[in-house]
């Protein structure tokens, strides 16, 4: 769809970005030490940290990706909401307090508190970098998606604007400004998602029976690069046409035309008993012209409120085993991944003690849980209010807001944009911490003063930011939630076995930890790169050829690579136990 930017949207956007940058400069003038830069000096209040957890965690994948998935296929998107929230249970009950007790600035600190090993620091630092970069991709893709309808700028320019803004935020004040940006963004995101949900419920559901709502649409890209919509050039001028937004209810129970205001449960009951028009796409290539035809598919509401409608999870309704294992694998990765994400873990260093770490996680769970409940209403609202952009599922939530007026669209889009800013800031702090504190200072052994450490971290944040911009441009068009699933798989496979076993198994050795991180990281990356999904969506192979070329039976690695990480740690620790004991005895005898 072609964007129609409005002055209100541009004005609100500039106010949000200006306020964010002003906040960063203000904190930047106060934070000078490395403790301040990497961990906000451990002075953040637990409530602020809890909401900042939400700001850090509720990324483009949650707001744009999940709402988009729900709007296109229903319940399947909500599976991500459930998995993302469940991960916080692991964080609270298993990881939070030990993490605060053991670490200082980075994830590697906690792993290495017992062994002081260069190998662990190297492996954990690299793992933090890889996971952060994987997580950065969907954020930058989401930024590009947002800026297009908001400001009318092309995708690549949106990615560049986000990249530059974030680098300024991180390079000025590090974790302090990042925390407050995330706090404000997390709070605003939940509040405005709540407002949107109230508006959806207040308007209720309306049936559309006119033939125009069900007309198929075709987008053709000709061999010479021109774009045609239903056979005429794409545009907003005379003799041109654009794709129209879609999604409507074709039949309400009792054949009524509108329901009027509904309660939260009533809304879902009505959806279940209605018929909703979803859309499928068919691609054909003829004489070098690629045509995508979008056709309506009237679907019973009951079918929308159960898993298995989307291409991602359709295997759940069949008999084949591999798609079911793929689903188990994804849900395991989401469950285990949250407590293994470096940019989330370092937030435990910003509070003063373990009790504050615990309290802030409870606040985080409340805030994040409330948001995920709302995602179902936002997604279903977009599905039934004609606000789905068939070419970009990430735009469902902002376009839903536009259906309630230009001002709320402007505010929601600006919040979504700061959503990306908040998450990307956290990721870049984690990545620059891994580079400077772990790899340069810890592994390479550079003796750095506090001042130099901070300067080098700022330089690293610029490099990581530039890299993120390139990736964001390259991965244009991917669904953000799908990409985040990869980051969770790598994080859970590489980091969780080491974290858990250090806490709960006394026979863990430093060799076991190092090997588990490396094996978990390499195995999960290799699995992803050789999977059917990657052959199809990244390398661009047609579906049947991607299935033939794939070297692994299902696309999500967690079910195999997380246990592999644990197994590797146990076997290596048992094999190296004698060495570790003899070194300890030698030290003791000196």
């Amino acid at each position: 769809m072609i964007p129609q930017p409005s002055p209100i949207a541009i004005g609100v956007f500039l106010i949000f970005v200006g306020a964010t940058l002003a906040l960063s400069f203000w904190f930047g003038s106060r934070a000078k030490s490395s403790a301040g830069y990497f961990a906000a000096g451990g002075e953040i209040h637990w409530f602020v940290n809890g909401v900042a957890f939400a700001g850090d965690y509720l990324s483009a994948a949650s707001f744009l990706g999940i709402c988009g998935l729900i709007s296109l296929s229903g319940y399947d998107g909500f599976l991500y909401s459930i998995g993302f929230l469940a991960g916080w249970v692991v964080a609270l009950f298993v990881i939070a307090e030990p993490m605060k007790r053991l670490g200082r600035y980075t994830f590697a600190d906690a792993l290495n508190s017992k062994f002081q090993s260069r190998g662990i620091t190297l492996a954990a630092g690299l793992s933090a970098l890889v996971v952060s970069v994987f997580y950065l991709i969907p954020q930058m893709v989401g930024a590009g998606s947002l800026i297009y309808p908001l400001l009318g700028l092309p995708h690549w320019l949106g990615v560049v604007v986000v990249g530059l803004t974030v680098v300024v935020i991180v390079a000025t004040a590090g974790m302090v400004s990042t925390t407050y940006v995330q706090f404000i963004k997390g709070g605003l995101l939940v509040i405005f998602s709540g407002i949107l949900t109230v508006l959806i419920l207040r308007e209720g559901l309306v049936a559309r029976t006119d033939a125009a709502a069900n007309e198929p649409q075709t987008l053709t890209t000709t061999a010479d690069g021109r774009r045609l919509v239903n056979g005429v050039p794409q545009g907003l001028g005379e003799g041109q046409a654009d794709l129209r937004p879609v999604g409507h209810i074709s039949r309400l129970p009792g054949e009524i035309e509108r329901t009027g205001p509904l309660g939260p449960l009533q809304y879902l009951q009505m959806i279940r008993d209605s018929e909703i028009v979803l859309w499928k796409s068919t691609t054909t290539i003829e004489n070098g012209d690629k045509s995508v035809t979008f056709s309506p598919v009237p679907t019973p509401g009951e079918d929308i409120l159960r898993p298995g409608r989307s291409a991602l999870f359709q295997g759940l309704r069949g008999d084949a085993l591999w798609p079911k294992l793929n689903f188990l694998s994804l849900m395991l990765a989401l469950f285990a991944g949250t407590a293994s994400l470096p940019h989330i873990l370092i937030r435990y260093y910003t509070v003063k003690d373990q009790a504050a770490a615990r309290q802030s996680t409870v606040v985080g769970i409340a805030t994040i849980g409330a948001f995920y409940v709302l995602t179902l209403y936002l997604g279903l609202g977009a599905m039934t209010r004609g606000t789905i952009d068939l070419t970009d599922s990430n735009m469902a939530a902002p376009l839903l807001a536009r259906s309630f007026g230009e001002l709320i669209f402007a505010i929601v889009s600006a919040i979504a944009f700061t959503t990306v800013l908040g998450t990307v800031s956290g990721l870049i702090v984690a990545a620059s911490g891994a580079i400077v504190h772990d790899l340069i200072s810890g592994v390479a052994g550079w003796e750095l003063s506090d001042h130099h450490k901070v300067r080098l971290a700022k330089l690293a944040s610029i490099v990581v930011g530039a890299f993120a911009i390139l990736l964001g441009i390259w991965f244009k068009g991917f669904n953000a939630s799908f990409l985040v699933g990869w980051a969770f798989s790598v994080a859970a496979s590489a980091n969780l076995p080491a974290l858990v076993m250090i806490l709960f198994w006394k026979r863990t050795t430093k060799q076991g930890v190092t090997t588990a991180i490396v094996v978990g990281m390499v195995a999960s990356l290799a699995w992803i790169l050789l999977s059917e999904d990657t052959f199809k969506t990244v390398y661009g192979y047609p579906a049947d050829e991607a299935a033939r070329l794939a070297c692994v039976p299902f696309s999500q690695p967690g079910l195999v690579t997380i246990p592999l990480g644990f197994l590797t740690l146990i076997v290596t620790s048992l094999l190296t136990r004698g060495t570790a004991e003899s070194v300890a005895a030698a030290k003791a005898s000196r």
Partner: protein
Amino acid sequence: MAHFGHGSATPTEVEDPRQVARNTRLGLWLFAVYCLIYGGFVVINAFYPSIMTWNVLGVTLAIVYGFGLILAAFVLALVYAWGCQRPVRGGEGPQ
């Protein structure tokens, strides 16, 4: 290895080992409870998906179970926070 710089960025807390052990035990119990609920959800979806279409409260079981999982996480978190605040018998009081 001076340049590793590990350890807390803030002054080390005074910990009561009995309280730490009690909190860890409580956390693991609650974690096990949630694992059962979450595991049940995932297994039903994967191997008995038709169960998720059951009508519960006028919507599907999938919706009720999904909301239940989110609510359960919050309730268990509150239980944990409350449990950890309680003083250990003969200990030094809450952290």
